[in-house]
């Protein structure tokens, strides 16, 4: 039996209500997130992804609808809203731009300090979080502004991990990084998930990443949830994805291209591994006969 940790109920948000600039960013969203889930949120620019995730830790209040953390409305009281900030960690896009402290250590410690933990606990958490993102302790006394782009990003993510959230939400954590950097960060995040059992929600435009790591994908389109299911289910609806201006993973495209030329491969394919297996099976059985 899975336990729900976060529920969004009939959530809608309208910006600048009652002015000529009124804009409905998300409408009628219903999402239930279980403990320890890994979810990829995909959507075109302006599909409401960022608005959606900012509801998850109470940064914006829904115009209508509710956000429940373990069954409790996070806007029911000021304390509840405060509590959700430490339970649901949110890493914004380009988080390195929010670094401000004199040293890496103190920047990572900012979150735990706001939680009013003891010096010892803060120290533990800083070391713990730094280990997860691969920041060695030699860097602790350096200024975060002297680090490389990738390292800055890690420090910023560590700043949120140090709050030890039960749900970690990241908005495009790989934007602007090279492929090796992307892989490292994804592996770091997955090991945080594996070790702590916390839920991981990653907003990305990379179908490959989402398909590879997420067990569940949510596709946003024009402020609504267009699809919600396993990567297999999502990628089997390639035509709809393209209509929303989204792409399917390269391997799925390859499969479709092959099928146009009369080479049918079974099942849904979205990773190189799956493609390799399917091709080997086909070549091993079909072509020699």
């Amino acid at each position, binding site marked *: 039996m899975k336990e729900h940790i976060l529920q969004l109920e009939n959530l809608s948000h309208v910006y600048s209500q009652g002015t000529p600039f009124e804009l409905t960013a998300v409408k009628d969203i219903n999402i239930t997130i279980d403990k320890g889930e890994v979810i990829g949120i995909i959507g075109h620019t302006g599909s409401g992804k960022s608005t959606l995730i900012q509801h998850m830790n109470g940064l914006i209040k829904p115009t209508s609808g509710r956000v429940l953390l373990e069954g409790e409305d996070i806007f029911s009281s000021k304390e509840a809203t405060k509590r959700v900030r430490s339970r649901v960690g949110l890493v914004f896009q380009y988080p390195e*731009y929010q*670094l401000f402290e004199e040293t890496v250590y103190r920047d990572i410690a900012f979150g735990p300090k706001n939680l009013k933990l003891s010096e010892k606990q803060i120290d533990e958490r800083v070391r713990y979080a730094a280990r997860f993102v691969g920041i060695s302790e030699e860097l602790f006394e350096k200024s975060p502004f002297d680090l490389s782009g990738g390292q800055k990003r890690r420090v910023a993510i560590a700043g949120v991990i140090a709050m030890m959230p039960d749900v970690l939400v990241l908005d495009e954590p790989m934007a602007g990084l090279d492929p090796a950097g992307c892989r490292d960060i994804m592996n770091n995040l997955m090991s945080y998930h594996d070790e702590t059992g916390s839920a991981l929600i990653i907003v990305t435009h990379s179908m490959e990443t989402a398909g590879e790591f997420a067990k569940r994908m949510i596709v946003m389109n024009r402020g609504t949830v267009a699809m919600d299911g396993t990567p297999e289910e999502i990628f089997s609806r390639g035509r709809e994805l393209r209509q929303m201006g989204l792409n399917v993973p390269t391997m799925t495209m390859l499969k479709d291209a092959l099928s146009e030329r009369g080479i049918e491969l079974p099942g849904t394919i979205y990773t190189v591994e799956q493609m390799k297996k399917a091709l080997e099976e086909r070549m091993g059985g079909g072509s020699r006969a």
Partner: protein
Amino acid sequence: MAAVLKDITLGQYFPGNTVVHRLDPRTKIIMVVFYIISLFSAKTYVSYCFMAIVLFTVIKLSKIPGKTLIKSVKPLVIFIGITGVLNMFYTPGQELLRFWIFKITKEGIIKGILMVSRIIMLVMGTFMLTYTTSPIMLTDGLESLLAPLKVIKVPVHELTMIMSIALRFVPTLIEETEKIMNAQKARGAEFDTGGLIAKAKALLPVLVPLFISAFRRADELAVAMESRCYHGGEGRTKLKRLKLMARDYGALCCGVLVMTTIFVLRSRGL
């Protein structure tokens, strides 16, 4: 807080395609000067009513919603209120009411009302300029109008360029501030609790990244401008050249007419 920042409508441009929008920015700037002179030359309620009609006509022509205009005056309510009250008390004349050392006179009430309407009309009138003119057009117009000052070595082009860049980056920086505040809030920062010192201290995690990003943007902008061979105003041409049309001359004539009317009214003691 985020919502508050977004609601600042100080001099926001409202795109449109009305006669007022299409007027040359120079015409509009000169018209505002005429308008201000007329407004300050108005003496009695007759002239004020006339100016109100002029303002109302321009508002109607520009199709700017009245709600927005009223909102633009809102931040000045206290200032306007104080002006009104002071005028009410400190104008000598026929006494209507007296308590302690204060006395309200009939002349005071009239003067107070006129002063309040003068300020409101002044604010609304000048806002009409920024509501109907895009910042770029506005600075282009200023640059062209101030061009004669180049003779006495005033760096007109540089000053207007600074102005347009500053105007351009106000919304960007507001957006940036909101983003950083949200990011720090996500790490448990609080901006609205504690005393004054606690609040000031809480702003540090916002100000440091904001300054860094402002400098970064300035750097990037400088590089972008240089790589487009920007080297000041010398010999620089414009994509949209300002050209006075028939409607501009018409508008200027109307402006002169309004001013003359006010002067005539004034000379008659109205």
